[in-house]
């Protein structure tokens, strides 16, 4: 009886600390501005830009370290991944990244960074503690989207020109399978349980849902917005809620975020946001979604419960990546 109850203890405790943490510290949103070589810092409560941090050239993909104290930034034109200390808001050191890093993903243990090198058709894997390149894997032409499965077994990369998802077996350090998807795949995102991989195709105008076990496309989702030409519908960023209810898809120059029922794969709604919506980020409590709108240089705020856009906030020029620190 006691042994059966024990596993709940750490779970309850972590839930409690998570709750206390979210109640105690307000949320902060970090946005990379591609043209301004800076990060905009937004206060989650007042929804105002409270700081702008100068970083390397052409910052695009950004991600938080697992302990939430550091932010990794792809400084594409500096050919480096910068590490920003969030407390001091200063770049503390660079990580080697290979050429033109665009997107990256952190392994579940937070130790390996998988970086897509757009210009050199490789994925570079960096060991974060030693700040050294662990290995490189050849993939298709123009690699972009990156994610690591929750169990850490697979690292996936999408290559824009080859229109494929490359499955990298992390143990074997090589590509063991490929899945053909719609033209110009931009972004890949595993579901929380790792059973599915959602991949957006910018030119194809679709999102492919891939079954992880078979690595076959299980479902292709199409988008239609009344009054918007089909060729403007260019899916890029994808975000899935942890409860498996919603998938949000940024539709680029269509200026809308699609709300997809993640169980039935039906598109339920299209939400109007700023121009050329690119990437998305959910708050840890899953109540708010932030979008970066590149051309209109702002960030739109979406209330997940009511599925309504509540506000748009001006940031730097061409906002690209976004993360929320809880």
């Amino acid at each position, binding site marked *: 009886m006691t042994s059966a109850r024990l596993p709940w203890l750490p779970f309850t405790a972590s839930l409690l600390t998570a709750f206390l943490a979210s109640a105690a510290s307000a949320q902060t949103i970090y946005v990379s501005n591609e043209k301004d070589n800076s990060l905009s810092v937004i206060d989650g409560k007042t929804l105002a830009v409270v700081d702008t941090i100068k970083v390397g050239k052409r910052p695009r993909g950004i991600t938080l370290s697992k302990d939430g104290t550091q932010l990794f930034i792809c400084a594409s034109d500096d050919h480096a991944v910068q590490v920003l200390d969030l407390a001091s808001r200063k770049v503390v050191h660079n990580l080697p990244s290979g050429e033109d890093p665009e997107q990256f993903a952190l392994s579940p243990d937070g130790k390996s960074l998988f970086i897509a090198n757009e210009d050199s058709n490789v994925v570079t894997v960096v060991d974060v503690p030693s700040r050294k390149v662990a290995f490189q894997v050849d993939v298709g032409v123009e690699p972009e989207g990156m994610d690591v499965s929750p169990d850490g077994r697979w690292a996936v990369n999408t290559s824009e020109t080859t229109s494929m998802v490359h499955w990298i077996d992390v143990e074997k350090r090589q590509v063991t399978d490929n899945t053909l998807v719609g033209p110009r795949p931009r972004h890949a995102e595993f579901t929380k349980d790792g059973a599915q991989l959602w991949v957006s195709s910018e030119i194809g105008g679709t999102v492919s849902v891939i079954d992880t076990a078979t690595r076959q496309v299980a479902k292709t989702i199409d988008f239609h917005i009344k*009054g918007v030409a089909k060729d403007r519908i260019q899916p890029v960023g994808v975000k899935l809620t942890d409860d498996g209810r919603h998938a949000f898809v940024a539709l680029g120059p269509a*200026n809308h975020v699609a709300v997809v029922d993640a169980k039935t794969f039906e598109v339920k709604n299209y939400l*109007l*946001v700023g*121009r050329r919506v690119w990437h998305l980020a959910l708050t840890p409590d899953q109540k708010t979604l932030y979008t970066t709108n590149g051309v209109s240089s702002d960030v739109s705020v979406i209330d997940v419960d009511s599925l309504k*856009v*509540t*506000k748009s906030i001006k940031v730097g020029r061409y906002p690209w990546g976004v993360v929320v620190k809880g």
Partner: protein
Amino acid sequence: MSGWWIAFQGIVAREVLRFVHQRERFLGALVRPLVWLFVFAAGFRAALGIAIIPPYETYIPYETYIVPGLIGMIQLFNGMQGSLSMVYDREMGSMRILLTSPLPRGFLLLARLLGGVVVSVLQVAAFLLIVRLYGIDLPAWAPLTVLPALLLNGLMLGALGMVLASTIRQLENFAGVMNFVVFPLFFLSSALYPLYRMEEAGPLLWWLCSLNPFTHGVELIRFALYGQVDGLALAVVTGATLLFAALAVRGYSPARGMGSRAPSAAG
């Protein structure tokens, strides 16, 4: 005091009854803005959103933008309708009965004016209901917060209608009002397009739109729908209401305006 109240009730009730009994008028008052909403706004859809201007906090489709303008349109036509029925009452003689009341003329006119405003609020309420069913997003409290703006804007346009009624001698002349009052007021305003668009088109158009009191009436309604007050619009609409009301009272004074024609009728 109760005599005043009875007179007030009587005049307002007569306006509302007149409105309720004329189904075509109610339908007409609704169909006009709805045609604009379903047809004109559909043609101008702007599915990609229009730029953010206060009081909006994010991007909106054109249908959302045009709603306050169409509310203004309902009140504008209602004001003109009030003016038309005033001319009609005068020709039919019922106006004379009203004005023979011992109560002050200004009070009688105000009651008549409020009767018209009540009717316009009923029309707007029906319009807002359809807008909601159509799926246009407005704050939950919008129908309540917009009430003071509706009252003020209705008074302004009703008073303007009275001024016009006092200067129009025959019912037939009324068609000119459409051409020279309603169309310029409506099209040279922020009802259909944001003023920055007009600024791009040319400074003259922008100035005309900015000076148009109807623009400020629409902006007052627009901000009120979102629970906000536009100070400039409030000042302009209040000023214009007082000005038109003063002109209306003057137009109906026995010594001038309509009253000055009394001798020929009496003689």
